[in-house]
């Protein structure tokens, strides 16, 4: 059975040792998601730890829901990028939509009002029979969610390559703004404090989505049906407003969204970070369906839900706010000093296990890897203009290539102007530029990666992606602040793929160090393979920069006849 849950024999034995007995079905489910690649970063952690993550501008680096940097005058910028690759391939519209929903929650969980969205997309060859359907579904899904919640989508990138035919990439990024002294973290505190559930009801959505995101695709995986959720951006919009309203009171001790592995990861992580125990009474969880089991409730990935630890006696204040926004609100448990996760339902105990070993002792692997062999030098024939071609011919060819073609068809489906704070959106500048609400100060946002460079040379490709992000921010006049990354790779159990990952991290780390451009958040998506064919190594870089006044930002349009054109750099 452990195998069906995706646990290896070693992992299962480890679980037996921690518990000192056979796990219950519910416990086994919980352990397996906690130790899945998606939640535990077991293949990647060793390398992620080599990235530079500190600097005077960093308020909070990796480890929380999103990264936080200082934007001066008591303002903080909170941002992160996250993938929703597998679900978007199976159901492009809902998969991409719920990806946007998830990344938004990561950001407003920390107390930020989301002010800009970006999206980095990779599709298969344009002529592949599935591509058209996937592109239109993904773009419509991102539009559906982002437009409805009222966060402007101000840029992104879109590439096409046959290596993504069976495995598209949908990476979404959200940037938010908060007061630096009003940031909310996820570590639980205060024995006896109430554990509160807010948002949508729990259904049987996406049970074991986190383990799916950690498994390789095969022909029959399109049959893995129930793992795709339907997003409800309207409820998310209400949840944003309600959470931000509650955050203005002083009722919250800790807060976290229920993302992958839902109630399991949120409760275990919150209690684990606080070094406490947690007891949940699942009868009180708002449910959409009848007859749900403790296992299903703990592993459901229903969207638009949050878990909050309140200060004692603040339940009424909080409930009034969620009532106003017509969202579910329920006290479902309390913090304890036992260090254990205890789950009760129908008067029975379904889970009683120590949290620290499960959350801290999740396996870490030092997977074997081999460096990527140096790519052959480009032949001279490629560097010299062929005799029978003019520069014009070449220009035409470049402009007709799908990667270079105008992406207007995509970005016009995104509301880039809502809030009235957008200075530059897609197509207008090298980075999107929005001002902070009610201020003249602005931020610039970009996403960058050139996967074919990373295939040829992961180290230089990783460094190049960081450098390009830095340049794009500088080009609009912003001071680059920090980076979020989304590491999309194939199966890490293959030394060649692991080598791409290690190389890209090394290149990124070098570039980030050289540029004082720390990584403050990120996401890893491995096993992006179909029938053994891996995607191109794609370390997508998202980055944010600061402008003292958004009006000083410069776009790409030439302004006046007669202006001088300068070329700088090598």
């Amino acid at each position, binding site marked *: 059975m452990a195998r069906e849950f995706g646990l290896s024999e070693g992992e299962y034995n480890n679980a037996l040792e921690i518990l000192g007995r056979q796990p219950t079905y519910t416990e086994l489910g919980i352990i397996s998601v906690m130790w899945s690649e998606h939640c535990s970063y077991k293949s990647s952690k060793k390398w992620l730890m080599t990235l530079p993550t500190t600097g005077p501008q960093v308020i909070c680096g990796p480890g929380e829901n999103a990264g936080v940097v200082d934007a001066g005058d008591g303002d903080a910028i909170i941002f992160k990028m996250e993938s929703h690759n597998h679900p978007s391939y*199976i*159901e492009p519209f809902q998969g991409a939509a719920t990806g946007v929903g998830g990344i938004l929650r990561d950001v407003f969980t920390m107390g930020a009002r989301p002010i800009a969205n970006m999206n980095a997309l990779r599709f298969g060859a344009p002529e592949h029979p599935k591509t058209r359907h996937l592109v239109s579904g993904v773009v419509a899904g991102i539009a559906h969610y982002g437009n409805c919640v009222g966060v402007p989508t101000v840029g992104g990138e879109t590439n096409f390559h046959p290596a993504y035919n069976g495995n598209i990439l949908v990476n979404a990024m959200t940037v938010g703004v908060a007061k630096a002294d009003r940031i909310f973290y996820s570590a639980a505190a205060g024995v006896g404090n109430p554990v509160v559930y807010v948002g*949508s009801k729990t*259904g049987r*959505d996406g049970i074991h989505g986190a383990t799916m995101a950690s498994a390789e695709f095969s022909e029959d995986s399109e049959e893995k*049906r129930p793992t795709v959720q*339907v997003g*409800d951006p*309207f409820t998310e919009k209400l949840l944003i407003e309600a959470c931000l309203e509650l955050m203005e009171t002083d009722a919250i001790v800790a807060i976290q969204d229920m993302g992958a592995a839902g109630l399991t990861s949120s409760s275990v992580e919150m209690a684990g970070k606080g070094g406490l125990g947690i007891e949940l009474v699942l009868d009180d969880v708002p449910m959409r369906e009848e007859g749900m089991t403790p296992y299903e409730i703990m592993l459901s990935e229903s969207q638009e839900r949050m878990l909050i630890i309140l200060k004692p006696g603040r339940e009424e204040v909080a409930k009034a706010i969620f009532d106003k926004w017509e969202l579910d609100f329920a006290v479902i448990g309390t913090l304890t000093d036992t260090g254990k996760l205890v789950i009760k339902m129908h008067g029975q105990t379904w889970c009683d296990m120590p949290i620290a070993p499960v959350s801290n002792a999740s396996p870490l692997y030092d997977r074997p890897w081999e460096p990527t062999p140096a790519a052959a030098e480009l032949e001279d024939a490629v560097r010299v203009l062929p005799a029978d071609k003019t520069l014009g011919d070449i220009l035409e060819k470049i402009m007709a290539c799908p990667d270079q073609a105008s992406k207007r068809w995509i970005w016009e489906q995104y509301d880039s102007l809502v809030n009235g704070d957008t200075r530059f959106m897609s197509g207008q500048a090298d980075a999107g530029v929005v001002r902070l609400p009610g201020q003249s100060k602005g931020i610039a946002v970009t996403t960058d990666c050139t996967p074919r460079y990373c295939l040829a040379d992961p180290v230089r490709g990783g460094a190049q992606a960081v450098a390009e992000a830095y340049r794009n921010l500088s080009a609009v006049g912003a001071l680059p602040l920090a980076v979020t990354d989304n590491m999309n790779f194939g199966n890490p159990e293959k030394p060649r793929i692991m080598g791409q990952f290690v190389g890209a991290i090394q290149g990124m780390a070098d570039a980030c160090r050289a540029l004082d451009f720390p990584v403050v958040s990120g996401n890893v998506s491995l096993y992006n393979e179909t029938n053994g064919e891996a995607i191109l190594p794609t370390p997508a870089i998202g980055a944010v920069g600061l402008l003292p006044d958004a009006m000083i930002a410069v776009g790409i349009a030439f302004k006046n006849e007669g202006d001088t054109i300068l070329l700088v750099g090598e």
Partner: protein
Amino acid sequence: MKAKVHVTLKRGVLDPQGKAIAHALHTLGFDGVEDVRAGKVIELQLKSTDEAAARKEVEAMCSKLLANTVIEDYAIELVA
């Protein structure tokens, strides 16, 4: 011959539209409503006059385009 294809969300899949409609009906005072599900109907005018052939054709359209069977069920109704 005519075909009606009913496309509905699978049991257990969240139906935000249905939820919102139910909520609005309650606000309007229609308390007798217990649950609402929203779906689509696609009406096809077909050249075919043979029922069996028509059904087969529509079946193929459903699985290829009209429904996404990851989250949706469909039902076909033929009208002569």
